[in-house]
């Protein structure tokens, strides 16, 4: 069905950014526009979700050029689910950043760039054209470069060099892949590609092309040999920025991988094995990295890497149940990881540091906030019935069915290390007394009440979303199942784009 409302989430954030540019250096107005814009964006996204949920896949041809000739936007269930999750995360982060950022950063355009970033994310999820996906990736990375360097501290700029170099490299690989793909099929529309690729005689070339996509998306989603830029850059920007990055940017890579490998390159044995090896190594190295870190945000950065491996494993097994697990994990991960970095920001505000050795006694002083944080940490670990638990059932089940016992072991190991580091962090940050000869710098206590609320509220919103995912797992499982069905059987997608 053709529906022009598909682009509404993109346009809401585009307009929010433009209006904010008009109010340059008027930070109070910008804050209101940012929170309001994100709220409208969330409502629009939810409307789009319910529409797609009821009526099936919606499409929109840009300038009324028929697919496969023009650029087409497609809202299937996977896209809209991710758009909704991104909107929730953006709403929470926009509230948090209106009190959690220094004024200097706001003066130099934090809010407009943040909305451009969210616009890019929505666009990347909704587009049905592979070159358009590349363009949205570029929108995302250029905005993220600015957000990462805004403030200009030494550590930040050093992290940004690594981040920039690897991301530009990833885009180059992605573009090379697109170039070869166009050369061998003569189309850029993903639905059209999905059956033109079968007619290509030189299937070896198709396999090699898919490797370009694995490398390109692998760098973006932080997969084993390509992830080293992530832990060395994500701990440098302010927490609000790190939350957006940690929660959303790596997941775009996973989304792109899900899309490309379900629609264009159907994974054969070689690709499946390759993805599985990468997934296993990602989980292992991410877990080992998390073990030795004492800074909270560095620890979370390694946990991001570790959990990317879970989703990669789901893609590697490529069956309905495995994809259900991967998609459910993606849903859970966006909410929780965004929240983790916001929590790191709150802790930093409470104590003036993020080093676990210098932290302590938070539970005694702030029991309510601590319990809220505990809820999120338990969800991350996957204590039943919270959200991290459910997707693992499907991953375990499918790994047993396919006799991937090594992956089962690694999954258990990864989950166990996650539990271990989170328990270590909990006891060091919340239960242990404040270490002697450490001066506490509590900025939180002296803040005005509305600022305190604005700082904790986003953590609460995301925690509520996580709780909803965990306690209402049945409906999320149903949605994941529908998404997985659409990923395995792509005929509805192709028919919606190209007609019969």
């Amino acid at each position, binding site marked *: 069905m053709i529906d022009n409302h598909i682009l509404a989430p993109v346009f809401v954030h585009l307009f929010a950014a433009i209006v904010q540019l008009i109010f340059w250096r008027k930070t109070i107005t910008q804050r209101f526009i940012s929170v309001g814009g994100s709220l409208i964006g969330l409502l629009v996204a939810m409307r789009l979700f319910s529409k797609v949920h009821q009526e099936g896949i919606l499409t929109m041809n840009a300038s009324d050029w028929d697919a496969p000739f023009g650029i087409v936007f497609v809202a299937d269930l996977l896209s809209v689910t991710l758009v909704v999750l991104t909107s929730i995360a953006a709403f929470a982060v926009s509230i948090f950043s209106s009190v959690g950022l220094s004024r200097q950063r706001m003066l130099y355009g934090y809010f407009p760039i943040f909305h451009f970033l969210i616009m890019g994310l929505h666009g990347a999820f909704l587009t049905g054209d592979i070159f358009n996906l590349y363009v949205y990736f570029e929108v995302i990375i250029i905005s993220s470069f600015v957000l990462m360097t805004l403030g200009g501290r030494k550590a930040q700029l050093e992290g940004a060099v690594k981040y920039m170099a690897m991301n530009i490299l990833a885009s180059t690989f992605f573009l090379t892949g697109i*170039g070869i793909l166009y050369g061998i099929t003569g189309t850029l529309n993903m639905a059209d590609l999905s059956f033109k690729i079968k007619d290509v005689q030189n299937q070896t070339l198709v396999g090699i092309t898919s490797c370009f996509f694995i490398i390109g998306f692998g760098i973006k989603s932080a997969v084993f040999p390509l992830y080293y830029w992530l832990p060395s850059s994500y701990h440098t920007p302010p927490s609000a920025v790190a939350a957006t990055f940690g929660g959303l940017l790596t997941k775009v890579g996973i989304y792109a991988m899900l899309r490309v490998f379900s629609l264009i390159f159907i994974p054969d044995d070689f690709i499946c094995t390759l993805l599985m090896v990468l997934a296993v190594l990602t989980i292992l190295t991410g877990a080992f990295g998390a073990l030795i870190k004492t800074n909270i945000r560095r620890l979370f950065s390694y946990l991001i890497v570790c959990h990317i491996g879970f989703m990669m494993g789901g893609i590697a097994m490529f069956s309905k149940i495995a994809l259900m697990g991967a998609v459910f994990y993606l849903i859970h991960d966006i909410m929780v990881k965004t929240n983790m970095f916001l929590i790191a920001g709150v802790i930093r505000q409470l104590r003036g540091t993020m080093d676990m050795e210098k932290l302590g006694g938070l539970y005694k002083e702030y029991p309510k906030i601590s319990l809220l944080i505990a809820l999120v940490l338990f969800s991350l670990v996957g204590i039943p019935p919270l959200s991290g638990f459910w997707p693992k059932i499907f991953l375990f089940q499918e790994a047993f069915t396919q006799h991937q016992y090594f992956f089962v072991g690694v999954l258990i190991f990864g989950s166990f290390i996650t539990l271990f580091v989170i328990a270590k962090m909990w006891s060091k940050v919340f239960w242990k007394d404040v270490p002697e000869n450490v001066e506490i710098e509590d900025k939180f206590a002296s803040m005005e009440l509305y600022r305190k609320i604005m700082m904790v509220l986003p953590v609460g919103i995301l925690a509520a979303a996580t709780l909803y995912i965990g306690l209402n797992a049945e409906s999320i499982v149903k949605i994941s199942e529908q998404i997985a069905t659409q990923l395995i059987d792509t005929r509805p997608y192709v028919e919606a784009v190209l007609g019969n």
Partner: protein
Amino acid sequence: MELLLVFVIGLLYAAGVYLILRRSMVKLLLGIMLLGNGTNILIFLLGTITKGKPPVIDEAYKVFQEIYADPIPQALILTAIVISFGLTSFAIVLLKRVYALVDSDDLDDLNTPEEEDL
């Protein structure tokens, strides 16, 4: 023509990868730029080069009568050039700032220990 382009692409990719693997920041930048240009020429080549046949339909006909030059790769390259122009200018400014702060061109010197900010 095709053969020449193939060699140019190979050269640009090889030089780009070589420069990226060096430790100097300026060489990293040059390497990224060379790789980007190599990719652009690759897209150009893979769109099959057709000489002197613009994609314009003759007034008398409704469809193309003979093979024509595909305009899409050129549109793609144009987009990619503009994007890489933006990214490169950002990268140059970033590296200049880093150089001013760190006072070194060596990528291995970019390891300031933990420093925190909100």
